[in-house]
């Protein structure tokens, strides 16, 4: 078959454009061990840095003695805060308007904090050097509980900003208080609560955990003294922002800094922030004139680089007797650790926590978040979610369950009668968002039917009867969740990070032979951008995805963008890709018209070509057009075929989903078994169904980990109790259940291709679903709330508390 005889469908299939389950082009190298990660970078004469870290959670540093360390063969330098101070680099700004010590400046605020940076000729010498540095500490009282941190006589953690009245986000009322962020109508909400038929109240804790990417954080800094150019390879989820920040901090002109994110082995928010290791490596490279590599180990990653969650969410939800929700109130105490290093858009110190009205039509709501310093590691990043959206989804999906208990209602029905209806979109939420599109009832009914919800409930009743009759020791729980996310940050008018608007970009160049290269401001960490963005271009301009190379992560070549996190790549850079492709298509149309000797308006786009309207046999393929762009002098049209687009999204996108799982719980051992998990996702237009499915599987597995065991736990002294993968739960295939995936498609009305983003949905929706299932199993015995993670002993304790062991 040739161009003449193929049907449009066959031609479209050949492009492997949007909707095709095209195989991931990245996997060829990843599955053969041919990826190129930061630690694979080896340069001539490269040195290695390693940190001396604090064993204490709160202590004064009274002395650092590097004498012995400098005697270790291979050790070249030991850098301390004193050395950085003259450069103004002993502290650095955080993404949240706070500042953070690069190296301990007189005191330490969390276990694992960076105290000194040892530079050596190899990794082993650096480690020996670390061991030989002697640090004198004077222990100070430790605060690990954010509520105690706000008590009047609590120790002052941040002496550098003691007695300030104003923080980066408004007034503060205590030395350990970072901000109060309020949204919604407090008076109206309290009035509704006062008069409601029913008010359910609960404290919902979303524990501290960690993104724990398989590849830890690291960088290689190389200052070329001849050209004056600094090249920085690193595990950066936002390479362009890192370049700008590096320039602002170091004073090196931005054009003299080149930041490169090579292959990244997972990020999940952990690689958004700027870490002391980056600053120290740059300084060490400038001082020594040699490239310096720093790669943290697993324990350092878990202990010191950005954690996630740690939100204490006190909720009140009001409803009528028959279950119509009338108001929602939430007060959150947010544990930020020793520095406020959250990675949120500037105007949102608690991220998008104000999406906590969820999928429900709630007329009034009020949210207040208090940020608090404690003696724990800084962070508070969006672990596979848009900023604090997982916390918000967990909160509302728990509150719905708590309300259902109070009302004595089925939680599926309670959801149904409160969903925002399809004809209410675009929907203005009580806490200030405009939901772009959704059809929650359709998704919910499809999900309930798919799992035979009524049948499951009947089985559960029977199980309960058997349990009470002593025939089984296993309870059955049904977990329900309907989540709504807010992703794709975001409109420049209200979203920026350190003053950088959160637009994104794509530049496409079509080569003469009709293949192409596209470069984006984002950076894949496993999401498969090289696969999916090529598919967008393929569909938009009619060239095969297989002929399109995709590049990201090199600030010298890629257009400026804010990077990949918060499910923003498809909503923002994906939109930029479509828009850039459309610019090319518009030019191609003019070229085609010229070649076909008709007016521009007389040709139309047809899959992979422009054809004369009404005469489809007269056409020019995109390949022919591409060649013409380079070899014909066309009056009024510049040669070449390329375009760039910077896309400022008009709104966020609002993916949603309906998840249902079934868990069996052994009340005697606290062991749980996920018997089934059904996940329906609506992410708008689906670019690559196979990649969506992979993203859903991965995100659900992280959600399983978080809900069932994964945590960063501290003891009273501020020691990290879960600093290795023995205690920090990272599921393997053994613990991972089978997932059934499904979808509905409600395109985003404002996105050029209607896509909404999906990478984070399963983490956002999965956590409440698993957790609700555990709660649901114990509902007949009077349980309303038990905090995650639902590991064996906590589940056992719940059973014990409810008298199930008697």
């Amino acid at each position, binding site marked *: 078959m040739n161009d003449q005889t193929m049907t449009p469908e066959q031609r479209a299939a050949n492009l492997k454009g949007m909707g095709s389950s095209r195989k991931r082009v990245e996997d060829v190298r990843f599955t053969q061990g041919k990826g190129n990660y930061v630690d694979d970078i080896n340069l001539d004469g490269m040195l290695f840095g390693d940190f001396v870290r604090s064993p204490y959670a709160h202590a004064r540093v009274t002395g650092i003695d590097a004498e012995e360390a400098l005697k270790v063969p291979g050790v070249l330098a030991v850098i301390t805060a004193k050395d950085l101070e003259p450069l103004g680099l002993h502290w650095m700004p955080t993404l949240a308007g706070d500042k953070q010590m690069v190296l301990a400046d007189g005191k330490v605020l969390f276990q694992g904090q960076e105290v000194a940076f040892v530079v050596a000729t190899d990794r082993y010498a650096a480690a020996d050097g670390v*061991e030989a540095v002697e640090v004198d500490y004077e222990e100070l009282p430790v605060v690990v509980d954010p509520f105690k941190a706000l008590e009047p006589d609590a120790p002052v953690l941040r002496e550098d900003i003691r007695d300030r009245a104003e923080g980066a986000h408004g007034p503060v009322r205590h030395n350990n208080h970072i901000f109060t962020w309020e949204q919604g109508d407090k008076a109206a909400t309290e009035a509704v609560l006062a008069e409601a038929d029913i008010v359910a109240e609960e404290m919902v804790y979303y524990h501290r955990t960690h993104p724990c990417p398989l590849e830890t954080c690291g960088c290689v800094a190389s200052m070329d003294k001849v050209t004056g150019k600094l090249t920085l390879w690193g595990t950066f989820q936002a390479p362009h922002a890192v370049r700008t920040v590096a320039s602002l901090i170091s004073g090196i002109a931005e054009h003299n800094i080149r930041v490169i994110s090579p292959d990244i082995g997972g990020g999940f928010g952990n690689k958004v922030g700027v870490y002391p290791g980056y600053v120290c490596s740059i300084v060490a490279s400038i001082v020594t004139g040699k490239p310096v590599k720093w790669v943290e180990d*697993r324990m350092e990653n878990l202990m010191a680089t950005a954690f996630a969650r740690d939100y204490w969410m006190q909720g009140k939800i009001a409803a009528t007797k028959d279950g119509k929700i009338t108001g929602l109130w939430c007060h959150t105490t947010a544990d930020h650790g020793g520095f406020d290093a959250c990675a949120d858009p500037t105007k949102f110190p608690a991220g998008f926590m104000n999406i906590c009205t969820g999928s429900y039509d709630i007329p009034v709501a009020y949210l207040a978040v208090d940020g608090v310093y404690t003696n724990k590691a800084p962070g508070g990043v969006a672990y596979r979610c848009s900023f604090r959206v997982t916390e918000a989804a967990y909160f509302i999906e728990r509150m719905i369950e708590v309300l259902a208990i109070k009302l004595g209602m089925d939680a599926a029905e309670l959801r149904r009668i409160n969903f925002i209806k399809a004809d209410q979109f675009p929907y203005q939420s009580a806490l200030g968002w405009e939901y772009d599109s959704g059809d929650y009832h359709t998704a919910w009914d499809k999900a309930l039917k798919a799992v035979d919800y009524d049948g499951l409930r009947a089985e559960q009743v029977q199980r309960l009867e058997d349990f009470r009759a002593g025939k089984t020791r296993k309870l059955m729980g049904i977990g329900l969740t309907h989540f709504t996310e807010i992703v794709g940050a975001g409109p420049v008018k209200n979203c920026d990070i350190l003053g950088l608007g959160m637009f994104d970009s794509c530049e496409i160049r079509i080569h003469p032979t009709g293949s192409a290269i596209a470069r984006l401001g984002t950076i894949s960490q496993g999401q498969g951008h090289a696969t999916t963005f090529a598919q967008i271009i393929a569909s938009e301009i009619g060239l095969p995805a297989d002929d399109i190379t995709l590049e990201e992560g090199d600030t010298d070549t890629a257009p400026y963008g804010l990077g990949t996190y918060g499910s923003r790549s498809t909503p923002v850079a994906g939109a930029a890709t479509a828009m850039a492709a459309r610019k090319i298509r518009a030019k191609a149309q003019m070229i085609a018209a010229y070649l076909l000797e008709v007016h521009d308006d007389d040709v139309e786009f047809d899959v992979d070509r422009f054809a004369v309207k009404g005469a489809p046999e007269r056409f020019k393929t995109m390949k022919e057009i591409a060649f013409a762009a380079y070899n014909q002098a066309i009056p009024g049209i510049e040669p070449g075929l390329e375009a760039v687009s910077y896309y400022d999204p008009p709104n966020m996108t609002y993916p949603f989903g309906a998840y249902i799982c079934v868990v069996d719980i052994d009340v005697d051992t606290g*062991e749980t078994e996920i018997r089934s998990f059904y996940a329906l996702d609506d992410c708008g237009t689906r670019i690559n169904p196979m990649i969506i499915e992979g993203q859903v599987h991965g995100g659900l597995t992280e959600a399983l980990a978080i809900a069932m065991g994964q945590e960063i*736990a501290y003891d009273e002294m501020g020691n990290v109790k879960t600093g290795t993968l023995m205690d920090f739960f990272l599921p393997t295939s053994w613990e991972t259940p089978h997932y059934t995936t499904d979808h509905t498609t409600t395109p985003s009305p404002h996105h050029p291709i209607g896509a909404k983003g999906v990478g984070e949905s399963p983490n956002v929706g999965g956590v409440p679903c698993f957790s609700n299932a555990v709660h649901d199993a114990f509902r007949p015995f009077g349980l309303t709330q038990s905090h995650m993670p639902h590991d064996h*002993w906590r589940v056992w*304790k719940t059973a014990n508390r409810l008298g199930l062991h008697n």
Partner: protein
Amino acid sequence: MIPAGFEYHRPGDIESALSILTQHGDEARVIAGGHSLIPMMKLRLTDLSHLIDLQDIELLKGIEVAGGTVTIGAMVTQHQLINDQGLADAIPLIREGSLQIADPQVRYVGTIGGNVANGDPGNDMPGLMQCLGATYELQGPGGTREVAARDFYEAAYFTERAEDEILTRIRIPVPAAGTGYAYEKQKRKIGDYATAAAGVLIRIEGGTCADASIAMTNLSDTPVWSVAAANALIGTAVDATARQAAIAAAIDEIEPVADNRGPVEFKKHVAGVILGRAIERAASRAG
């Protein structure tokens, strides 16, 4: 996560290994699979200057079943324990237990000798060896001696083995035909040490329990071999009452400590549940 520097030795026979060990005293340590030792070295919890790799010593290899005794060389890996059919026929309890240790990657290199010599209360083999009444052969500069597994463990990481001795072989009496067995282990995930684990052997004659042996893992700072628990079963039909009595006796002897796997009350409860299940399964297999 980088160990301090050390010298690496790879002797070809036990005599050379012993002489290096004697020469360097407590500066030296033998290494088998390294899957307990290397993590400690990387955390710099163990500091030593000489590592003596045992993998070239033939004497420490092989599994032999003869004359009612199984003899296992110290360097036999857990993977080999699982895949040796002769061993599985003679003492199926070992395969059942080994399959619950760590994960396949660890089992490819982790050895039985390292597992029992290590003295970590989390290791599963010591309890199994006590349950089975195994004997360890230790060779030192002064010659060879035998120590019963049931007498070997003193406290966490402290054993009867002198620092200049190498564990060479483990001898296990093959249980009488028809002996029921079970190793039951609760863990948080694959690759985890036990929250609670129990090894049980039960011989039933004419409907009553003629002999029993019960040992528990990770519930004290040494494995707990409980004579009282076994005695509670002997002479009974291993019914619910007898099981409860055995459980009560065993729980009396354990002293679990709180850690990330849970608080003490939880561990004690779970230990009882796990032991109960192990007894039930062992009894169901006796015949």
